């Protein structure tokens, strides 16, 4: 991992079109401004991890259990 020291207001540039700027620092929090093409998804790492984790949990779906809730849902409707 590349580690760089930056001061408030300073930036780093990644490739041609991504700029990460230190916008504010307040105690233990650092506020980052990110300029990137909109097609590049910028996500908080913990949200990405949460989605990964949820997908892994979902991948163990049991057919029988799904059939059970499907039955309940259909009954609720009719």
């Amino acid at each position, binding site marked *: 991992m590349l580690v760089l020291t930056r001061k408030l207001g300073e930036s780093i540039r990644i490739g041609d079109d991504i700029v990460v700027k230190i916008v504010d620092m307040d105690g233990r929090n650092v506020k980052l401004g990110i300029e990137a093409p*909109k*097609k590049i998804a910028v996500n908080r790492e913990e949200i990405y991890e949460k989605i*990964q984790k949820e997908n892994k949990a*979902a*991948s163990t*779906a049991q*057919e*029988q*259990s799904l059939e059970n809730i499907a039955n309940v*849902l259909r009954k609720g409707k009719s």
Partner: protein
Amino acid sequence: MSDFFKNLVYSKGDIIVFPSGIPGFEKNKEYVIVSIPEYEPFEWLVCVDGSRLRFAIINPLLFSPQYSPKLVKEQLEELQIEKPEDVVLYSIVTIRENPLESTANLVGPLVINKNKRIGKQIITDDDRYTTQEPIMRKQ
């Protein structure tokens, strides 16, 4: 019944390609959507690369009628959408130990161009929704 994944019959034109896979399963890129009456209103997103990977999915509007995730136009670029009618949304379902507490992921909808058969799980930055939205709450 559960063996239908093994003996699944589909044609090449049924395959939906997820160019980046989905988070956690980045290498699994080809899926078909399987609808079977026993599981309605759920469907299955079944990976057809020889792995036994599959997900239960649901149209989120069925249990969350107001659902309208913020999708960034540019993030949809790889889906090559030409008309809004080509787009279908699904949520991946996580079946809980008590199946009635099962949840759907509304933060990361599956967005599929059914015409071009390209799919992507988009991670929305939308704090109105959670990754574990109860499916049964309105029953």
